[in-house]
């Protein structure tokens, strides 16, 4: 396992206390804390490089543009994108998926067509497709999950028999930590001619991702879930698909020529980046990638899997705790319930011990309905969490049990 305490020293926020206790931050699937290196990169950008990109003829603006484009290349290299121009900076995963639905989907989906998503998708990979399907008179087919929280492959096969135009799924489930067999799902979808959109919000921060090896068509990710700033993220796509797509947002930067009544559009990726981009976000994201790469995504994945395993073992020892999701291989996300102690109450009680967990539906209401729970409590780990955090979680959970009469106080 990694030396989590050593990494914590790199994160100013993790030095803070909550309610007089060491902050134990276990809500990394929601967002992650930022290392000093990322904060420095953002500050340094504004101190030395800030100007509007792709516009100015002066040296400062040229440097700003180079910095922004270098960040794009950094993202491309990190995910093994087809080309830097196949990386469109977005506000995050949600905007990236909306871009695909709004541009690719609008141009290619017809009445009677089918879009396939899964019952474990985040609302951000469900609602954009619902909106698109309603607009087009197309059908949305939601693939069922198995009892232990995996995509039901036989139902996936049945859904593909409808020869969907678009298939979308999460690489890693934000609620259950399930690591889906992405390459296999993509191969099967391609065999029936579908274009595949992978929600990479929870995979990009936690495991080595190679989009060319996956052979997906679109891959969406968020910077803030991988130590980068909020409002940063990317859509990574096969360049030919982006070339053929109409624009998403109209405005400056995305145009080539503007006439009174029509316009021609810029080359990719700029065609999809209307307006002044979030340059500090791109710069911060590149710095976050540098930080992650120094440690190694393989090492991070291994560390988190060990934490998840330890957490599942430890929590399962507490009478009344139910852990959801696959028992074997999974990412560092552990969703659970504790008797009739509502997850919201659990979160309040743990907070008094300085422990931050998520309680609720995790933006996966279709999944919660299938698990037959209104909400779960969720602990999600990152490289700065250690076994001591798992122990703190379990100890505090026993306190919750005492308050609700499950264990003697």
């Amino acid at each position, binding site marked *: 396992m990694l030396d989590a305490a050593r990494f914590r020293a790199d994160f100013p926020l993790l030095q803070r206390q909550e309610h007089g206790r060491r902050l134990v931050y276990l809500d990394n699937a929601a967002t992650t804390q930022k290392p000093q290196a990322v904060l420095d990169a953002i500050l340094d950008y504004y101190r030395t490089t800030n100007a509007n990109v792709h516009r100015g003829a002066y040296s400062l603006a040229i440097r700003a543009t180079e910095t922004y484009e270098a960040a794009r290349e950094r993202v491309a290299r990190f995910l093994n994108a087809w080309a830097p121009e196949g990386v469109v900076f977005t506000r995050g995963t949600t905007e990236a998926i909306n871009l695909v639905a709004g541009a690719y989907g609008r141009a290619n989906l017809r009445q009677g067509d089918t879009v396939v998503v899964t019952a474990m998708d985040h609302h951000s990979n469900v609602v954009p497709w619902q909106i698109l399907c309603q607009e087009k008179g197309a059908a949305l087919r939601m693939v069922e999950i198995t009892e232990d929280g995996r995509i039901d492959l036989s139902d996936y096969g049945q859904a593909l028999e409808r020869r969907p135009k678009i298939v979308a799924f999460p690489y890693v489930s934000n609620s259950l930590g399930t690591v889906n067999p992405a390459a296999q799902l993509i191969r099967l979808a391609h065999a029936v001619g579908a274009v595949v959109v992978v929600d990479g919000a929870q995979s990009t921060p936690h495991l080595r991702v190679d989009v060319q090896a996956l052979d997906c068509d679109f891959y969406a990710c968020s910077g803030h879930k991988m130590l980068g700033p909020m409002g940063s993220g990317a859509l990574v796509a096969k360049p030919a698909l982006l070339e053929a797509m109409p624009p998403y947002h109209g405005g400056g930067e995305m145009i080539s020529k503007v006439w009174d009544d029509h316009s021609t559009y810029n080359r990719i990726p700029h065609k999809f980046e209307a307006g002044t981009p979030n340059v500090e976000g791109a710069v911060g994201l590149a710095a976050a990638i540098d930080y992650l790469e120094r440690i190694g995504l393989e090492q991070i994945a291994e560390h988190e899997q060990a934490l998840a395993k330890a957490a599942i073992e430890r929590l399962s020892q507490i009478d009344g705790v139910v852990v959801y999701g696959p028992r074997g291989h999974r990412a560092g996300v552990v969703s659970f319930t504790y008797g009739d*102690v509502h997850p*919201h109450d659990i979160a*309040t*009680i743990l907070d*008094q011990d300085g422990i931050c967990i998520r309680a609720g539906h995790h933006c996966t209401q279709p999944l919660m309905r299938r698990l037959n729970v*209104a909400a779960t409590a969720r602990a999600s780990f990152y490289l700065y969490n250690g076994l001591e955090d798992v122990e703190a979680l379990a*100890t505090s959970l026993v306190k919750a049990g005492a308050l609700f009469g499950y264990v003697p106080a």
Partner: protein
Amino acid sequence: MDTSPPEPKLRALYQELILDHYRRPRNKGMLEHPTHAVSLNNPLCGDEIDLHLLVQDAVIRDVRFVGRGCSISQASASMMTQLLKEKSVPQVLTLAGRMSAMMQGDAAAATDKALGDLRALAGVSKFPVRIKCALLPWNALTDAFKSSA
């Protein structure tokens, strides 16, 4: 490792009376012919309530609720229903105001006998994010009379 018992603030939040209402909610169910029916949920945490009222001559004759959610929201709903019967609409709206004041930390409201068992929820005011849980059923109640206005 810290193994100290839960602190007083939490004890005050999760009193026996609250857990009792949470686990054995009063007036749970639905009315066959409600004059007012309101569904409200808190999309942030998933708390839900369906509130049914039977109002005749501006007096609440009967009340039932069905809900899913945390101990605070469900206990608040159960305690609220105990107070409503045979009270006039203006009276229950006044109670809603007192409840809201108690959630804002108003000490006089927290000892107001008119709030009945609900006074046990006074500790919620120390947990700002949970105030919306305690007020969910009350918001359903005030919505019921807004929509009929």
